[in-house]
Every structure is written in C-alpha cells, then in structure tokens.
C-alpha cells in the first residue's frame, strides 16, 4: 500500500494582513495512493457477501472483515429467508404512482429493496434477472457499492455458473470462486 506524506489538505498560505500566529502548523498527514487520508480508506470496508437463490435459500455466505456481529450459520439462513420475504413485500408496498404501460401492454417491473442504511453498515442488494440476490454488507462510507456487487456477480458468473459440476440453486462450494472473491474483496 503506497503512502505518501503531504501537508494537511486545506492549509492555505497566510495572507500578508494576518499575523504569524494564525498560520496553521503544517503537520504531515499520511495519504493513501488514491489521495484520501489513510484513516478514511481504512473505514471503507466490505464486511460480508451473501447469495440467496430464487427460492430464498442461502447458497453462499462469507465474511471478509470484522465489523458485524458473529452469527452462526443457522442465523444466516434465517436472515436470508427473512430478507427474501421483505424484498418481495417492499415491491408490493411501492407508493409511486403507476407508470404508463409499455407498448405491448406489459407492466414495467417494480423493484425491491436495492439499498438499506443503518448506523453501522449499509446493505446493497443486487437481484439478477434469474432471481438470485447478492447481498453485500459494507461500511456506510464505502463508495460504489453497486459496482462492487456487480463485480461479485461477474466473478460468480465466471467461476460458479461456468463450473460444469455446480448444480443450480444449490450451495456454492467452488474453490476458485472463493479465491477470486478473496482476491477482490479482502484487503491485505
């Protein structure tokens, strides 16, 4: 991880009219290669990824960083089932006024929960056209969660779907998938 020191962002040169005691002491702040402060980068964390199949059963569950409560596998199964139900209900309670029907009289599809905020984490849910849901638990400051979850979907398509020994809707036990996901989501 590259680190370069720099002056505090925002320290301006003192104007000629101000006396010297108002000048901010320049202290080196450790900056990450991306330009953000190291402490900010440390806060952007992906906690866990859950994959739920079409029927609401949990097929993959992995924690990448500490930050969420420790739950046993039974609790994760119950959580997945609960979220599957809540996702369906959130589609039906949509208060938005009905949209014009598309040509061909097809109703535009309503979507369920895509993102949920709490004080300690953010949950991003990506539903594939086949009904599989990817739940990504991140810290609230993590940007681009939809890009991250789509990359996870790409990795899933690459290593799980193309695996000839994987049966659909069954728990995912593919080692290459685990390795690729770890390389992408676990920060050294």
């Amino acid at each position, binding site marked *: 991880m590259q680190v370069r020191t720099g002056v505090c962002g925002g320290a301006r040169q003192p104007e000629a009219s101000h006396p010297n005691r108002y000048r901010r002491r320049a202290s080196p702040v450790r900056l990450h290669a991306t330009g953000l402060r190291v402490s900010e980068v440390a806060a952007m964390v992906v906690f866990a990824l859950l994959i739920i199949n079409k029927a609401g059963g949990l097929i993959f569950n992995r924690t990448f960083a500490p930050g969420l409560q420790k739950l046993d596998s039974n609790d994760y199964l119950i959580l997945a089932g609960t979220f599957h139900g809540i996702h369906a*209900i959130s589609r039906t309670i949509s208060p*938005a006024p*009905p949209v014009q029907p598309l040509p061909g009289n097809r109703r535009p599809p309503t979507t369920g929960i895509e993102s949920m905020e709490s004080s300690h984490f953010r949950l991003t849910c990506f539903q594939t056209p086949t009904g599989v849901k990817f739940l990504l638990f991140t810290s609230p400051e993590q940007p681009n969660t939809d890009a991250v979850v789509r990359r996870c979907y790409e990795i899933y398509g690459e290593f799980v779907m193309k695996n000839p020994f994987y049966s659909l809707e069954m728990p995912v036990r593919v080692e290459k998938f685990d390795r690729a996901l770890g390389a992408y989501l676990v920060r050294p």
Partner: protein
Amino acid sequence: MSVYSLYIFDRHTECIYTKRWTDRHALPAIRSTAGGALSNGSSSTANDIPAATRRAMKHSDDAKLIFGTIFSLRRMVRQLGGTDDQFLSYRTGEYKLHYFETPTQLKLIMLTDLHVGNMRTVLYQIWATLYVEYVVKSPLAPTEHASGVGVANELFEGGLERFIVSTM
C-alpha cells in the same frame, strides 16, 4: 422531490396516523367492452365488495405490510450490527422509506420518491414541533391513541401540510 405518504405507529404496534399524498389504489377507469369478455368472470366476484371498501382494505393492508417490513428490518439490523445499531432507511427502484423511532417507541415512517436526501431531520422536526406540540400536549387527546383517536386533530394536520409543502 415529493413525499408519498407518512405513517405513525405507536408502541403497541398500532397505526395511529396515516397521511397519503398519492393514491396508488385509485379506481381504474371504465374498461371498454372490447376487453370486457375476458375480465367478466373475475369482475363479477370483485363487484360483490363495493369499491370504496376495497380501497379502505387495501390502505389498511398497506399500513400492516409497512409495519411488518420495518419490524423485520429492525430486528435484522439489531442482529447484524449489535443492539445499538439503528435501522435508518431503505431505497428501492421506485421509492425511499425513511424511519425514525423515538425513545417512547413511537415510529414515524415516511415514503418519498428517490430524489430526496436524508429525511431524518425532517422526521425529527415533525415529531418535535408538530406531534409533541399538537398531539401530546393537547389536553383533549388521550394518552393512548387506540385506533388513532386524538391524533388527527386540525392543528396537527394543518401544521403537517404546511410543513411538508414548505420542505418540498
């Protein structure tokens, strides 16, 4: 930037106040006779219940579904983030749901469109400046608002309309 509806639930899990600014169960327009042949079978049973009652049932169903959703989500958040974690809001492709809970377990839920930001301060203000002022401090309103008695008084409703119009 529009608010769709506001719900208030008390600590007995009962819906004590509902306010809708859009009606998604609006009665459909009269269908033409060309499409009437197929829908005749289903519409005969649906006509047994008058349309107004059906709409009322759907509205109360909405309140129950919303309460069930936030109850489950709150439980999920507590399980995952620890007992001090609070569920704040969620967003779907069509709407956002904002949630605010007071220490007395009064729950304020607001559904808005996608273009609004964080409505937590708005919900806090609705509670502090409108609900507490006009409902809690009202000498005529009972302490427990079973089935919404005492909440929908004129001052509260008027204040809420003005507040929402001024924020949007």
